């Protein structure tokens, strides 16, 4: 057991755990953060994506030690019903999901994209989400929602 320190959704966090444990298992287990979802455990679906220092990353194959002293953001840290992130507002406005299991990971990929490219094209969005799988076929609505959020964030 080692103590690892990082910032989780803006809160200083210390975890005593096996440093090789996956970040996802620590988030969902010890820390009770269930927004990031287990989908494949092999960085192939994006359901567990979180943002680590501005990059969307699959937390299922990210070892705990690698986030030491970094900033980790999960869907829980993106926004709340009272203070939603523009992406969350846009996903509701566009009804951009069906079952929604993939959505917490997709929102993190989208949030990371808008941070590095506030004015993405349709193709930029699709490229940024290409490692996120959606089985319900809500892709086009999600792209529309992300472009809508981008426009809203750009508006003066």
């Amino acid at each position, binding site marked *: 057991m080692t103590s690892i320190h990082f910032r989780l959704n803006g809160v200083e966090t210390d975890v005593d755990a*096996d440093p090789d*444990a996956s970040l996802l*298992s620590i988030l*969902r*287990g010890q820390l*009770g953060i*269930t*927004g990031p*979802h*287990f*989908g*494949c*455990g*092999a960085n*192939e*679906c994006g*359901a567990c994506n979180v943002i680590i220092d501005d990059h969307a990353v699959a937390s299922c194959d990210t070892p705990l030690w690698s986030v030491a002293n970094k900033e980790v953001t*999960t*869907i*829980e840290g*993106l*926004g*709340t*019903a009272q203070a*939603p992130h523009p992406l*969350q507002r846009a*996903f*509701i406005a566009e*009804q951009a*999901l*069906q*079952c*929604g*299991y*993939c*959505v*917490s990971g997709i*929102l993190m990929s989208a949030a990371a994209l808008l941070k590095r490219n506030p004015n993405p094209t349709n*193709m930029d*969005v*699709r*490229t940024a*989400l*290409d490692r*996120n*799988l*959606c*089985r*319900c*076929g*809500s*892709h*086009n*609505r*999600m*792209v529309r929602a992300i472009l809508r959020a981008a426009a809203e964030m750009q508006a003066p």
Partner: protein
Amino acid sequence: MISPKTEPSLKTEPSTVTAPGPSPAPPKLPPSLAANPMLSSWIKFAPEGHVIVSPGKVEIGQGIVTALAQIAADELDVDLARVQMVRATTAGSPNEGVTSGSLSVQHSGRAIRYACAEIRQMFLAAASERLGVAPDVLAISDGTISGPGNLSTSYWELAGDVELDRHAAPGAVPKSSTQRTLAGNSVQRIDLPDKVFGRPRFIHDTKLPDMLHGRVLRSELAAATLTALKEDGARAAPGLIAIVRDGNFAGVVSETEAGAEAALLALRKGAAWSPGEALPDENQLADWLKVQPAESTVISSKSAPRPSETKQTIRRQYSRPYIAHGSIAPSCAMAQWTGDRVRVWTHSQGVYLLRSDLSMILKLPPDHITVEHMEGAGCYGHNAADDVALDAILLAKAAGGRPVRVLWSRADEMSHAPFGAAMRIEIEADLDAQNEIVAWRHSVWSNGHSARPGRADMPGLLAGTELAKPFPRSISTNPPQANGGGGDRNSIPLYDFPSWQIESHRLLTMPVRTSALRTLGAQGNVFAIESFLDELAAERGEDPVAFRLRLLTDTRAQDVIRAAARRANWKPAPRDGVGYGLGFARYKNTGAYCAVIAEIEGAEDITVKRLTLAVDVGEAINPDGVINQIEGGAIQATSWVLKERVRFDNTRITSNSWSEYPILRFSEVPDVEVEIMSRPEIEPVGAGEAAHGPVAAAIANAVFDALGVRVRTLPITRDNLIAAMELTS
């Protein structure tokens, strides 16, 4: 679904035989309400101002809970926000069988609409008594019932006076389509905010007090026997509570999820398996399907009053592979024993049906088993949801009364869950001297498309076949044609051919496990019929839209084809490497009508650029919900057609990860445009499965338009395209 009790008895009332003139049929309850007549099992009023609605159908990402809430709110005249939807449970929900077949609006929606219509009248009568005015001067607004002057009461005030613990009576008259204010309008789904804000809503995210974690050991080998199991390694794993072994069923229970994973890994190292059952050659699948022992059924037969002379017969063969459900979440369940009673939480599509199988396996009376639904990820049919529920129950036996959560691995989900059945379809058409179709023969070979729990006298759950005293591995069957059929679903053409013979051959062997996948056999059959018709139209030099319109007499069918063609500017001017194709079907021949025009770009690989669809679902309760379902269905169908094929070798399923079983990605998704025909006066039908067959055919027909090649073997991959080109040249 006519109850024999409502039939007039000819023995005691012979006069009914000669009764003059037609009399109106006595009113009947909708089938779901007739089967579950207790009004309070559907609707309750909570004193603080809520309407509690308990459907027997479950949310699987299709938005049904919202559509049902709309129906209840509309009929009762309450705001949507007052409606609280209860998840299905065998502890009290109406038994509506399974949530499948695009039937939830028909079944649950009609039951709720009629129950609410009756309840509304009961409350108006009670209000009339309390307020001392006639019922017809009362009006209801957001649950407040008011009359002349300041007279007013409410559902909630009157709830104590109105007895809902009674059976529904036939004859309630729901509002007409013009009186409804919510149904027919797009409303926001009530389950979406939780999902967008990452609040725990899925079964996967639910933590019960004192919960343990379990994992089940399964061999990669098909139907393997566990010959030896060394437990030492697993025993040393941190937090281990128990190792469970019963025949070929083995698993671990641990204090933590990581501990369960570690114990499973160790147990796997200590396990020896006998070689399992041989799997067929995946490259000769269509041939293999035709030579297996099979149960053959004539599905439909029709002969022309005056047979025409056949000048030529054209014969074509089509096939599709096994297709995985591919839920983004591996299946999950939780179970907890209290003495000889067990409670299980599941994302099964049918809580009562699962309970029936559990009762057989556990040898417990059904009332000792409580099955409660919780939302999972989209399932698209019968995946491992039911299997994992039994896994959790078996492991929880060793948990000393604590709840156990079991989650399948991605690899198990992609190899041990049932698949959509592979299909071989042969169609023959006899043409007369004018190349008109005078006879049509359609034969389909396939494993059965359903092995859902609760349907047979033997359970169909995976672990049941693994126990020391195993239940036999059931061979999948097909629902009867009256319920839409299985392998034969949509095999009967909607076209007005003078004669036909439709046959279905259901395999009696099942080396690869199959069960219900969205649309059952409809996707394969529609792909075949619509591809063949396109070919016949091309042979005749006739426009495929005009050809179909001429062969159809059903005006709703013609309307969706015209609407899709108009919206897609049929037929755009030819461009190099670009093709356009049409596909059409009425799902199950009784459900939603759907026509689609596909635009593709073809070279070595096929890219679907745009799908333009028109659908007729009758009354669209939540139009945006319908569009969402059609869009999603069209995109999933594109994925099946371009990419999906379960892979296997002689001993095991090899496509057990997303890299081995790729699905459509964001960069590959076509633009999708959907037009809904306005039919508020027609009973609603579901939308979730309407698009798959038409989209498959439209893409294949567009490939021909672009490249002059008929691909009759799905998926339309580079390999299958090259094989088809070689066949053409």
